């Protein structure tokens, strides 16, 4: 019987965990790309679209935000095939993560859109810009800058929630750790501590990087620094 800190055995399992990490990163990358692009479209549609579109988007946001992610995964991966729509587990997980994130991100962008003085869009129209150009060149560049703090938060939530994809059989970090635990129950504490550390490092460095981006693209006059 080895102790709970069997480091040598853990080292042997490293390649397996790194393989899982690749999927975790893949899920995060594709999930956030889907969530962000869809989230921006939803926010713009809700703020500038027709009344009907705006209501449809509002319902979408409310429904998606009201469903636990694991349930969403099961609906997409196990439920949809019943009506003839099939996704592999990895794609299903990306869809689930992306859709859920889009509903939350739309809220972030909508808040930022509302914070931009209406006069600026009038000024854009007065120059002869179409609604599309005004949104593209005047509104969105400001919205994205203002949304970085909220987006960072959403990004790290999505990153950590990729671990739920183990529930539909995606062999990501969590799943690989679970395999190791089943094979070698003595390792349970050290393995899960180890992947906890990996998630923590990922989140920590993401936050650091995004904080830098936020400062780099800060608009003059929008500094949020409080001098203590």
């Amino acid at each position, binding site marked *: 019987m080895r102790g709970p800190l069997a480091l040598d055995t853990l080292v042997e399992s490293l390649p397996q965990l790194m393989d899982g990490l690749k999927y975790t990163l893949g899920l995060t990358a594709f999930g956030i790309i889907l969530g962000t692009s869809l989230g921006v479209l939803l926010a713009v549609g809700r703020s500038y679209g027709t009344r009907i579109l705006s209501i449809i988007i509002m319902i979408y946001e409310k429904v998606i935000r009201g469903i636990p992610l694991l349930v969403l995964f099961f609906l997409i991966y196990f439920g949809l095939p019943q009506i003839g729509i099939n996704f592999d587990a990895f794609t299903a997980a990306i869809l689930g993560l992306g859709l859920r994130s889009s509903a939350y991100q739309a809220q972030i962008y909508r808040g930022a859109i509302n914070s931009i003085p209406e006069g600026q869009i*009038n000024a854009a129209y*007065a120059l*002869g*810009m179409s609604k599309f150009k005004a949104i593209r*060149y005047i509104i969105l560049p400001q919205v994205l800058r203002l949304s970085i703090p909220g987006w960072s938060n959403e990004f790290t939530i999505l990153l950590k929630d990729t671990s739920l994809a183990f529930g539909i059989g995606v062999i990501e970090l969590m799943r690989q750790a679970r395999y190791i635990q089943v094979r070698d129950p003595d390792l349970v504490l050290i393995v899960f501590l180890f992947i906890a550390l990996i998630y923590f490092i990922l989140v920590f460095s993401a936050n650091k990087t995004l904080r830098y981006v936020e400062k780099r693209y800060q608009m*003059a006059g929008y500094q949020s620094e409080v001098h203590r």
Partner: protein
Amino acid sequence: MAMLDVKNIHKSYDDNEILRGVSFTMEKEETKVIIGPSGTGKSTLLRCINQLSPPDAGEVWLDGEEITNPATNINKIREKIGFVFQDFNLFTHLTALRNVSIGLEKVKGMEKETARKRAMDELCRVGLDAQTKQYPAQLSGGQKQRVGIARALAMDPDIILFDEPTSALDPELIGDVLDVMKSLCGKVAMLVVTHEMGFARNVADEIIFMEGGVIVESGPPKEMFTNAKTQRAKEFLGRIGALYGGG
């Protein structure tokens, strides 16, 4: 044919009729100043002209084209109508230079470098050569408004509408903005809503006095200030003259 022909404009917000049939015309390079008490529809009239708030009834014609016709491409028309806002409405995320060049690039489709040069010229023209790289938050009110004017000028408009351009400024900053506006006189048509009586008296070709959503009286400044026909115009000019002085 007049360059700008405004015919019988009506505009209501909810049950409140702001404009009750306003008509006037403007020629090329003419300067007209609209004065009148607050809440009389002066700003609304300007916004009806460039269709930021389309009128409920009436017509606006620019260079023989009916702006109020829904079939008209309003974005094309707005390129020809500059607008200077009371609260500047500069684009927060862009430098002074980019505030001026973005319309040239994205609306007129100019090359980036050409647009930059043109924007530079316009900023020099309003005396902001040293501020081109600054963001709106780093500019004083008077500087912001001059960027606003440069932004409108750069588009080569036939007419610029000024909506109380100095009302949001500290008194000592008003002069710079008025000087810039005076320098434009006779180069581009200007329709100015303002309480600056000095500007109205010295620069305008015609003063339009509005009250209660209609034009009560209009005429050359000299006549209006010394010999207004209507009692209302006389009273208003007397009161406002005492407040804002000659200057």
